[in-house]
C-alpha cells in the first residue's frame, strides 16, 4: 500500500460523472484506435448516428431521448471491463461490445447485473440458447450460422453435391477465428468435403506461408474468418496467387470496403456473408443525411455512410431501438430499465412491415426472438464485391442455416457452460 494510491482514489472519485437519469442510455463500447480501429470506426459511427437520427427526427424513443455513451475499448478486454464498470452505473439498457473477447468477459457480469447484451454476429454462439444465457442475445445470425451459410452457398453452386471438394478455412488464430471450426467439421462429415485449417496469428501482417500452402493445395473454396489487417493481407495474397476470387468467401467481419479496396481491381468477385443489406439505397439514409450529417451531428466525417460496417452499426442501433420500443409496449412505460429492455429484446419481432415503416425495407432478414431462442432463425445472405463499381452487391436472399447440425452443437456447448458455471436455467413459457 502506498500513499499515492490514496491520493489517486480521492482525485478520481471527484471526477466520476453522472448522467442525466431521464435518458435511455445505450453504451457503445467502441474502438476507434489500435490494431482494429479501422474497422471499429465505421461501426461506432453508424451506431451513434442512428440514435442521433431517432432523437432528431422522432424526438427519441417513445418520447424519451436516447443517449449514447461511447467508451473506447481498443478491442482490449481489460479496457472493455473498465468501460463496462464505468457505464453500468448509468442505467444502461443494452451493451454492444463488438468484440468476442469482451463478450466472453461480460457474459457472467451482465447476467449477474441483469443487463442485456446484444452480440450481433459475434460473441459466444451458444448464447443463442436463451434458457442458459438469459441476458445475452445474438440475433439475427451467429458464426455457426455463417459457417453453414457459406457451405450452403457452395452446395448451391455445385448442385448440392460437394463430396470430395476441398475447403480451406483461413482464420484469425483467436477465440473468434476458432468459432466455426466445430460446425465446419460437422458439416464436412455430413456433406463429405475436406476441411483444411489454416490459422493466421494476430495481427496477420505476414501470410506468405499460408497462401503458398493454399496455392499448392488448390482448395476448391477458401473460407475466411479474419479481422483487421488480416483481411486486407489475405485478400491481397489471394489476388497475388491468382486464386479465383468468386471461390473465396469471408465471414461478415471479413467483408467491408476496407478489406477489398487495398487489393484493387483484382479483388473483384470476392464474396462475403452478411445479415443486412449493403449500400445506401434506402429511405433511412436520406433521413440520416438530412437530420444527422447535414446538421453537422454525425459521429464521423459522414463519408462512411452506406459502407458495410457503418450499415452494420446502424442496423445494430435500429434493432436496439426497436427492442426498446417493444419493451415500452410490453411494460406500458416509456422510461424502461435494463430488465424491461431484456424483455423487449426477447419479444422482438422484425417483420417486413416494421422495416418498411423505418425506411429500411428488406434491409435485414425477417425474424422473431423468443425466450428459448435468443438468436433468431439465423438468416444470412451473400454479398459480392464489384471492384469496377467499387461497391458490394447482395447476390442472394436471406437464407436459413442448417439447424440440424447447429442446434445440437448449441445445446451441447450451452449445457456444458451451464453445468460448469452452475447456471439456473431460465423458465420459458
Amino acid at each position, binding site marked *: 500500500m502506498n500513499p499515492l494510491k490514496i491520493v489517486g482514489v480521492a482525485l478520481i472519485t471527484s471526477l*466520476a460523472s453522472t448522467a442525466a437519469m431521464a435518458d435511455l442510455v445505450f453504451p457503445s463500447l467502441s474502438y476507434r484506435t489500435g490494431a482494429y480501429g479501422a474497422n471499429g470506426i465505421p461501426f461506432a459511427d453508424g451506431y451513434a448516428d442512428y440514435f442521433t437520427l431517432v432523437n432528431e427526427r422522432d424526438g427519441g424513443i417513445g418520447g424519451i431521448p436516447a443517449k449514447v455513451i461511447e467508451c473506447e475499448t481498443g478491442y482490449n478486454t481489460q479496457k472493455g471491463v473498465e468501460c463496462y464498470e464505468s457505464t453500468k452505473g448509468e442505467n444502461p439498457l443494452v451493451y454492444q461490445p463488438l468484440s468476442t473477447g469482451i463478450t466472453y468477459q461480460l457474459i457472467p*457480469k451482465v447476467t449477474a447485473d441483469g443487463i442485456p447484451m446484444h452480440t450481433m454476429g459475434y460473441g459466444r454462439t451458444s448464447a443463442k440458447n436463451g434458457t442458459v444465457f438469459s441476458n445475452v442475445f445474438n440475433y439475427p445470425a451467429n458464426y455457426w450460422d455463417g459457417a453453414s451459410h457459406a457451405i450452403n452457398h457452395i452446395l448451391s453452386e455445385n448442385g448440392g453435391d460437394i463430396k470430395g471438394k476441398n475447403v480451406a478455412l483461413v482464420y484469425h488464430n483467436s477465440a473468434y477465428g476458432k468459432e466455426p471450426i466445430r460446425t465446419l467439421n460437422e458439416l464436412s462429415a455430413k456433406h463429405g468435403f475436406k476441411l483444411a485449417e489454416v490459422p493466421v496469428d494476430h495481427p496477420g501482417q505476414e501470410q506468405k506461408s499460408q497462401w503458398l500452402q493454399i496455392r499448392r493445395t488448390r482448395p476448391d473454396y477458401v473460407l475466411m474468418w479474419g479481422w483487421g489487417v488480416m483481411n486486407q493481407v489475405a485478400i491481397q495474397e489471394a489476388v497475388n496467387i491468382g486464386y479465383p476470387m468468386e471461390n473465396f468467401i469471408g465471414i461478415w467481419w471479413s467483408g467491408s470496403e476496407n478489406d477489398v479496396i487495398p487489393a484493387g481491381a483484382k479483388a473483384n468477385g470476392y464474396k462475403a456473408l452478411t445479415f443486412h443489406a449493403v449500400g445506401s439505397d434506402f429511405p433511412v439514409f436520406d433521413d440520416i443525411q438530412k437530420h444527422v450529417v447535414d446538421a453537422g451531428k454525425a459521429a464521423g466525417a459522414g463519408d462512411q455512410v452506406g459502407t458495410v460496417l457503418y450499415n452494420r452499426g446502424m442496423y445494430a442501433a435500429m434493432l436496439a431501438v426497436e427492442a426498446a420500443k417493444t419493451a415500452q409496449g410490453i411494460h406500458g412505460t416509456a422510461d424502461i430499465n435494463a430488465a424491461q429492455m431484456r424483455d423487449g429484446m426477447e419479444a422482438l419481432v422484425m417483420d417486413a412491415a416494421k422495416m418498411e415503416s423505418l425506411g429500411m425495407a428488406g434491409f435485414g432478414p425477417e425474424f422473431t426472438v423468443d425466450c428459448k431462442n435468443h438468436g433468431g432463425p439465423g438468416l444470412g445472405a451473400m454479398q459480392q464485391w464489384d471492384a469496377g463499381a467499387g461497391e458490394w452487391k447482395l447476390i442472394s436472399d436471406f437464407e436459413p442455416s442448417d439447424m440440424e447440425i447447429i442446434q445440437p452443437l448449441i445445446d451441447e456447448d450451452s449445457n456444458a457452460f451451464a453445468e460448469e458455471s452452475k447456471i439456473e436455467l431460465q423458465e420459458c413459457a
Partner: protein
Amino acid sequence: MFYRQAGDFKTTYRDDIQTFPLKQDRWGYYIVLAIAFLVVPFFINDYWTSAVMLPFLIYAIASLGLNILTGYCGQVSLGTGGFLAVGAYACYKIMTAFPDLNIFIVVLLSGVITAAVGMLFGIPSLRIKGFYLAVATLAAQFFLVWLFNKVPWFYNNSASGQISAPERSMFGFAVTGPNADAPVRYLFCLTFLVLLAWVARNLTRGRLGRSWMAIRDMDIAAEIIGVNPLKSKLSAFAVSSFFIGVAGALFFSVYLGAVEVGEAFGITQSFLVLFMIIIGGLGSIFGSFAGAAFLVLVPVLLKNIMVNWLGWPTDIAVHIEFMVVGGLIVLFLIAEPHGLAQLWRLAKDKFLLWPFPH
C-alpha cells in the same frame, strides 16, 4: 518537524535492519495498511474495484516479480505476458480439475507452476546477457501464448479457446465468478499483495537479495567471491515467475473472469510491467507499487478528464492519452532515471532535514 532521524538510535542489529527504520515511517505504514484493509473495503464499488484497485494490486504483484528479476538481478525480461498466461492457465486447469480445492491454494499453486516454467526459460540467461537476453525472453512470450492457444487441453476443449473462471469461495464469500462482491475480490488480491510484498522485502534484504544485486552489478566479480551465478539467476527467475504467476492467476480468476490468451497476455503486457518498474524504480519494492499505481491511474485519470469532463471524442482522447503517457515516460526518464522511488527518497531526505536545509 516531527519527521526526524535524530534521537532514533538503534541498539541492536535487528532494529537496524528492519524495513522501516524510522518510527514515523513505521507508523505511516501501519496506518496505510489499516486503511487498506479496514476502511477501503467499505467504500469500494464495482467500478473502483474493476477499473482501478484490482489492476493496481495485480500489476503491483507482477511488478514486484519483474523487479526482482530485472531490478535486483539485472536480467531484463520481456516474457512477463507469457508468464502471466502460465499463471492464468495453471489456475484454470487446477480450478476445473479440483473444484473443491481452496482458491487461495489454487493461486499459490499456479505461482509454483509458473516458477518452474520461469526457471526453464531462465536457463539461457546463464549464457546470454543484456538486450540479447531481453529479446530471447520474447521467445518465451510468443511460444507460451502460441502453446496455450493451440493445445485444446489447456482450455478444456472449449469451442473458442476462451477460459472462464467458475465460482469459488473462501469463508463463504464468492471470490471468483460473477457473484463475487467488490470488497471480497479487493481484499483477496490485497492479501496476496501484502504477503508477497513482505516476502519480496525479506528475500531482497538477505543473502539471496545481495547475491542477486551482486550478479546485477558485476556478475564476474560476484562469481569469484563465491556467489553461484546459476543458483542466483535461476532463483531470481523462479521467485520472479512465482510472483508473476500469482498475478496471472488473479488476473484471470478474480479480475477479468474470462480471458483469451493472445489478447490478454500479449506482448503489450510485458512492456507495460517493464514500464511500471522503470517508472517506479528498478530495485525498489516501493517503486513497484508506485509504478503500477502510476500506469494504472494515469490512463484512467486522463480518460475521465478528457471524455467525462471535457466531453472530447473518445478516439482523440485515446490518441492524446498515448501521447501523454509516452511523453511522461520520456520526461520521467530525463528528470529522474531512477524512478518514482528515487523521487520519493529525495523528497523524504528533504523533509528529514526541514526546516534546516543543511
